[in-house]
């Protein structure tokens, strides 16, 4: 097998026999993000056991999600889907009384062609709780794209931007929209910031609220006001959308949401690199500013300052090589940041590559490679884990960023690993959190420095058979 590292971006596609998590796993973080929601996963025992086990989110604390477990009678259509779902949703309403129930369709509902979208509006009227339907199935999507399907479905439920007259009546609700701001600035912002003629900015992507406010704050420094987030902390606080609204994503796996916002809600999409790493965050802010015709203030210094604070980490990673097996679709952004840190990326495996939605990020990746005089990494869509492991044997990267299934076996073979899921759950966005990315990346390297002299790198026996 020859391994070439080319100068331009090349995309390959392999067999797709790779391991990643099921997209229904998005429930695990979205239910925490949207505090008044209830997620109902309509699927089989296989789905339920996954949520319970592989993600380690045992359903212990009585969270706001559950399984509607399909049994033999449901599959063979002996039972009435509508009546069954109604029974469960009435129960959920009684027990938890959420502001919204989100039905997560799975592979099984796809295969038996259960008409969730058809049933939802009817049931919604009957039980008087909004029901949002997202098809987070493994037939069409990978891991983090589950969030994409939920946000795309929720985009339809965001209130429409009102005309001037209607706005006055609705003033109170808009005021509530800014309730995260302290009281004084709330009044001020309402005066200085009116929706009628100027354009507003809505950011989409689920981030922990502290990270979301960090990013909002960075934009505020450039006098850009973020008028809302999709999703917001509460379902009842969904952002107002319309043709005078600019939208920008914070996560690379939200292409479907972006399309929905553009096509169905007539929003204007800002295509920017993603705010991961100081370089990405700066590019992201710059792009947004350029759309609003605002000259950035002190952004370069801010970036420089962050790089300065990362110095100790950079010394550890510089010149080291990394291999992404592909899992959460954050791969391109992370690879770009790590290259900028001085690392060499051999391969970027990625479950799915939307070249349009990620265009700005891909360009930045290319520019970064040129700047750092590093060959362009190979990008492998729908990778084949078996082949990747063969390639890794040959390349011997200093670090493999991999799904959980391969971490221990690779470590046993002397290859350092970091779980890709950690990047999904860790706070990695914005200037302040760049440190956390490097903290994760360098952990195995730092561990090795501690264990270096013990001579324990290889922990498997030579195979006899």
């Amino acid at each position, binding site marked *: 097998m020859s391994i070439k590292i080319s100068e331009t971006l090349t995309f390959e596609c392999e067999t*797709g026999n790779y391991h990643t998590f099921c997209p229904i796993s998005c429930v695990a973080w979205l239910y925490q993000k949207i505090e008044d929601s209830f997620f109902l996963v309509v699927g*089989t*025992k296989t789905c339920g056991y*996954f949520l319970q*086990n592989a993600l380690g989110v*045992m359903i212990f604390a009585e969270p706001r999600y559950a399984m509607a*477990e399909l049994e033999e009678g449901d599959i063979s259509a002996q039972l009435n889907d509508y009546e069954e779902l109604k029974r469960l949703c009435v129960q959920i309403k009684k027990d938890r009384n959420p502001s919204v129930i989100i039905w997560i369709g799975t592979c099984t509902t796809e295969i038996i062609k259960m008409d969730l979208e058809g049933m939802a509006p009817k049931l919604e009227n009957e039980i008087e709780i909004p029901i949002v339907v997202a098809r987070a199935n493994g037939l069409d999507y990978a891991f983090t794209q589950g969030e994409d399907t939920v946000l795309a479905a929720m985009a339809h439920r965001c209130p429409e931007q009102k005309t001037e007259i209607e706005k006055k009546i609705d003033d109170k609700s808009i005021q509530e929209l800014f309730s995260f701001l302290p009281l004084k600035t709330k009044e001020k912002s309402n005066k200085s910031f009116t929706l009628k003629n100027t354009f507003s900015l809505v950011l989409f992507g689920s981030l922990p609220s502290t990270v979301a406010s960090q990013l909002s704050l960075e934009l505020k420094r450039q006098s850009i006001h973020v008028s809302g987030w999709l999703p917001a902390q509460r379902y009842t606080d969904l952002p107002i959308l319309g043709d005078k609204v600019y939208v920008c994503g914070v996560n690379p796996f939200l292409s479907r949401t972006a399309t929905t916002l553009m096509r169905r809600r007539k929003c204007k999409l800002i295509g920017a690199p993603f705010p991961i790493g100081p370089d990405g965050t700066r590019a992201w802010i710059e792009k947004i500013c350029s759309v609003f015709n605002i000259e950035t203030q002190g952004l370069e210094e801010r970036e420089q300052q962050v790089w300065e604070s990362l110095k100790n980490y950079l010394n550890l990673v510089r010149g080291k090589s990394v291999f992404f097996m592909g899992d959460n679709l954050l791969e391109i952004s992370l690879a770009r940041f790590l290259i900028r840190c001085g690392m060499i990326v051999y391969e970027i495996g990625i479950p799915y590559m939307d070249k349009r939605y990620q265009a700005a990020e891909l360009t930045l990746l290319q520019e970064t490679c040129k700047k750092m005089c590093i060959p362009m990494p190979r990008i492998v869509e729908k990778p084949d884990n078996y082949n990747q492991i063969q390639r890794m044997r040959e390349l011997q990267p200093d670090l493999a960023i991999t799904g959980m299934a391969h971490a221990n076996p690779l470590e046993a073979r002397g290859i350092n690993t970091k779980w890709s899921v950690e990047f999904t759950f860790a706070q990695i966005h914005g200037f302040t959190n760049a440190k956390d990315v490097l903290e994760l990346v360098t952990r195995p390297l730092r561990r090795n420095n501690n264990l270096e002299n013990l001579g324990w790198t290889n922990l498997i026996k030579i195979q006899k058979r």
Partner: protein
Amino acid sequence: MKLAYWMYAGPAHIGTLRVASSFKNVHAIMHAPLGDDYFNVMRSMLERERDFTPVTASIVDRHVLARGSQEKVVDNITKKDKQEHPDLIVLTPTCTSSILQEDLQNFVNRASMSSDSDVILADVNHYRVNELQAADRTLEQVVRYYLEKAHRQEKLNLSLTDKPSANIIGIFTLGFHNQHDCRELKRLLQDLGIMINQIIPEGGFVENLHELPKAWFNLVPYREVGLMTALYLEKEFGMPYISTTPMGIVDIANCIRQIQKQVNIWSPILLGKKFDFEPYIDEQTRFISQAAWFSRSIDCQNLTGKKAVVFGDATHAASITKILACEMGIRVSCTGTYCKHDEEWFREQVQNFCDEILITDDHTEVGDMIARIEPSAIFGTQMERHIGKRLDIPCGVISSPVHIQNFPLGYRPFLGYEGTNQIADLVYNSFTLGMEDHLLEIFGGHDTKEVITKSLSTDTDLTWNSESQLELNKIPGFVRGKIKRNTEKFARQNNITKITVEVMYAAKEDLSA
């Protein structure tokens, strides 16, 4: 449809994969959509497995769905055959892909024509059986396949081994302390002078399965997995099996006596002697294992009549119930299992050792039962441990579903004589202990949720008079600080500056009110 928050046993394909990946040089192909292959994560993470889990998912996506999966599945099987040269490839669907009703048997037939490996389709109904039943079924299927194959090739050797020997059936990956139990069983059999013919599926080669009938008997330590195989071997080859779980002093002795009975059928003829294991049982029970002595010791006396609740798989729940009731004198208020399919056996085993029996796979029912009974300790699964946490009742974990904590690096068997020690420790440590218990009862609990003063030092505005000081000094050191803080907290809340003995007991009353 069923509203489900948590389940005790996984879906069927997990059982199949656990059996397949326990054998050496066997590969499993899952016919499944993306993300259904989380078995690999479980095995790699929980067992801290060093080797890649021999399971590959042949991904069903929208594309495959439109065209049919045959090509892809057959292709993946033959590819794996070339890459890894496994002895056997097991194909399994999941709940999801089984609805597609594709003719997987036909795929298997086609793939086996172009593979050197044997290829079989795991024959399991994914909507009717759970993980444990499927594992039992798959193990039987694999054993049957290889014995029939050997029969066709006339390779079957039915003569017994020269020395008494046994097969251990049902040790497999992701089992509850299975690896430790296996080591303990090997030691037990070795002590008895019995050879181990084969252990399946863990670490076994399918190519050796045709030698299973050479053993004198089969030992099935857990009811959940292995019984079907043992029954098949009994029916086809007249092999006797022993399914008494050697857990707890009494049942170990029962199990050994059954072994003795089995080996003494042939040993007078083949070896010209009879085995007598009674001295061994006696020596182990009274002097090697510490459990019998523990039952007699003053420590265990304090456990007499305490209420406990037991819940788990049929094997572990039944055994632990018997140990608590018969060997330690603990009152089992309720015992139960989630193995609904084994209800009859379970009831028969425990009916005289507990007040009530609960058979359910709904964890909320178990939680309600525990809340109602308010036992002093629970012995259950991870779920009961959690229920116990919420109710402030200690819980010892005695059964699957497994958790990373059930894969300790140290040696923690549940079976055999070392297992009795481990269980005694577990039981003893789960209850609040003797003296501590009395004192907690008198002075109201361990709780230190609130900070009473900012400093930990005691020079405050409060004064203790000489009597109360004396009373305080009577209390043993390990709870004294707590009681002092509780009393002072009470005094502050009630604007009392001088602490007398009366105040101490008023504080105690206040806490227990």
